[in-house]
């Protein structure tokens, strides 16, 4: 896989290069860039399959590079040291990222995933989705990318009624009646959707308060949803759920 590495620190580039050479021999690093401009030129020149892209690069971000590139015919693995906002956006778009310092195991896994995506040619247009999400103001209702095996669905957070955990999988129940299975644990979506107002009513249930009809006293506490579903509320969460719904 022809790969370009982008990071504003040369040491990080070198490091990643060494790790890739050691753990991912199928990766061929065709160029490295420490600035957005350089990266832009290199991408235009080499047409890589894969990009390792640092999010925070001085005053610019890796997202700025993506904004400039109209044709995104490559996969991206974001690399970041500590950037809550950036990672959040990447997660919403269901894209892949690595944390610095890079764990060789995670690096191998990320390359494996990228390989499959390149092979299957999943063109989810996720990068454009990511950019559109970043552009939006905080007031607008965000969308979330739900990657399934052969397609990626972009769902408005407002259309999610609830999520149910099934071991390391998560079922999404949408307002139009659709039920989608995603191969990521509920915890991950709870972290993304709690800031959007969602409530973890139970270890296995994440609920959108907009679709809660009433609070039933049966079984120590149950939520009745507008579509008739009943969701148990576990004891440790009871007060918190009441508080959120009381508002």
């Amino acid at each position, binding site marked *: 896989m022809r790969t370009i590495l982008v990071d504003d620190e040369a040491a990080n580039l070198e490091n990643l290069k060494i*790790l890739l050479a050691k753990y991912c021999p199928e990766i061929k690093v065709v160029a490295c860039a420490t600035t957005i401009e350089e990266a832009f030129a290199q991408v235009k020149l080499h047409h890589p399959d894969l990009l390792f892209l640092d999010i925070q690069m001085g005053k610019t971000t890796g997202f700025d590079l993506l904004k400039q590139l109209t044709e995104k015919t490559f996969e991206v693995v974001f690399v970041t040291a*500590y950037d809550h906002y950036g990672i959040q956006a990447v997660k919403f778009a269901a894209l892949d990222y690595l*944390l*610095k*310092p*890079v*764990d*060789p*195991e*995670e690096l191998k896994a990320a390359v494996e995933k990228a390989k499959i995506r390149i092979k299957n040619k999943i063109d989810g247009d996720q990068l454009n989705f990511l950019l559109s999400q970043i552009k939006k103001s905080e007031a607008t209702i965000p969308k979330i990318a739900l990657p399934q095996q052969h397609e990626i669905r972009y769902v408005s957070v407002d259309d999610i009624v609830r999520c149910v*955990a099934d*071991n*390391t999988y998560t079922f999404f129940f949408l307002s139009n009646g659709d039920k989608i299975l995603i191969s990521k*644990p*509920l*915890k991950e979506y709870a*972290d993304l959707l709690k800031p959007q107002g969602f409530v*973890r009513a139970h*270890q*296995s249930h994440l609920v959108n308060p907009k679709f809660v009809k009433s609070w039933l006293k049966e079984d120590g506490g149950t939520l009745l949803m507008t579509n008739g579903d009943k969701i148990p509320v*576990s*004891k*440790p969460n*009871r*007060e918190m759920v*009441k*508080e959120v719904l*009381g508002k």
Partner: protein
Amino acid sequence: MKKIIYFFLFCLPLLCFSQEKNDIFLSEANGNPTYYRISRPNSDCPVLLRVDEKTKWISFSNHESGDTLKNNVFLGEAKTIHLEMRIHKDSLRYYRYSVIKNDSVYLVDDAIPRKINFKWPKGSDFPEYFTMSLGDYNVVGKKIVVKIYKLPQKFKVNTIVIYNQPLLPPKVLTKSLFLESINTKGLSVSEITKMMIKRGRESFFLKRQPLNEGETITISDSIKLMSIGIENTGVNFIYKVKITRYGSDYPEETVLTTSDWDNSYISVDAEYFKKPGNYMVTIAPELRSLDIPRGASLTLPLTSFNFIVIDKRAKLFTAKELFLISIIIGGFVGLISVLILNNRKKRAATQLAQKSQEKEIAKLQLESVRSQLNPHFLFNALAGIQNLMNKNEIDNANRYLTKFARLTRNVLDHQDLISLTAEKMLLDDYLQMEQLRFGFQYNISASPDLDVENIEIPAMLLQPFLENAVKYGVAEKGSNGQIEINFIKVDADLILSITDNGTGFDTAKNYDGLGLALSKNRISLLNSIYKETPFMLDIQSGGNGTTVKITLTQWL
């Protein structure tokens, strides 16, 4: 005055000889470059200025109080300027002019204008007049002063200052209120101001009280004035102070004149801000006779600050206010009846609010306790990685470094809750790092009936106990050390336990440095949040080891 304007207007069409096509400051009438008269109208030395095409804007007539023969010209990013004057041929020899750059270098020193640009012919508007060039000057980033007089009036010197430097936003250095003290009783503001100027700013006649941004002032008769001090830019006279009051009805504006600046200070009489309301003080340059090419714009830099004035004195109500008050009272009566009806509901809500507030406090305390737990282990771990690097065990160094990063991130991330899977991974990371140093054995297990992926527990709950188990339990036992961690489900309870085979300690004694006090504190804080599902801590310690058991009752 009129005469001069006519003079100015009439000569424009006749100046075709010096036309520059790329000049952007063109006369509207004929498309020729504009000549600005920059000597004062009362001067007998008419000096004209032409700017180049680089110039963004020009303000050609700004007067200071004090000198009636002085004019200030401000230019925006000009490169070169051209100066000239029109003189009757018979009086050519009486004029003397100097051009001084940046107050230090004489470019021209008391010279007679000699270079003739144009002779006005007999039938023209100005027969017998010569247009004399005073020269072209590079003005990039400069201040140019032109001094000119006509003999024999050697002391009637006209001064023209041309500034071609960026206008800076005025920098407010001080803002204070001056309050009356005993010494000033019975004196008017102007008398006090005079006295202040005479005796220095920190005058003992008035009490100085700094004014902070956004401060609320209770107005009283003892407040005499507000003093604003700005950095001396050399051109302070162009900065105007505007005081805007946003009262209940419409904004009121007061613009103070430039002559009010005394050195770099301005005094604002309390009369200007004695009415209650929100005040905004803006200090911005005000340029006179500004000329900007069509389509261009100029934004002047400004500085502002706010304060609020309230009136303590009781006021009689106006009819409008009485009406409003009656509405409010009426509303209140209605509200109270609603309140009585919903009394029970309300009370419950208040309790809930109080509870959530208590919870909020507990959460904050929890946050601070957690950051205290931020382990000294971090540095030992770094030393361990350093050791691996020095031994050239690069793969291991990489592995431990990423583990270390994961642990650090978890401490920094301040997550409230963490899944059992993630907790297990962190404990594993931690133990692997410590194992590197001490060589003990360990095992982490969870009962199969636990949904480890989805059950969450408070983050960093076990970590401090585990640190104790390593440090005081197994550290000295080397490879004989053993730590056992279990997540067990008993009915609806979740039990987390850590067992080590160290030498144990007396649980009744208060061990400093064991971090136990902190952890106990933390558990009691957690209990104030999760009231219905209390956390129970049980520590059993003996010669054969120590078991720490945390029971999360009714958690599942």
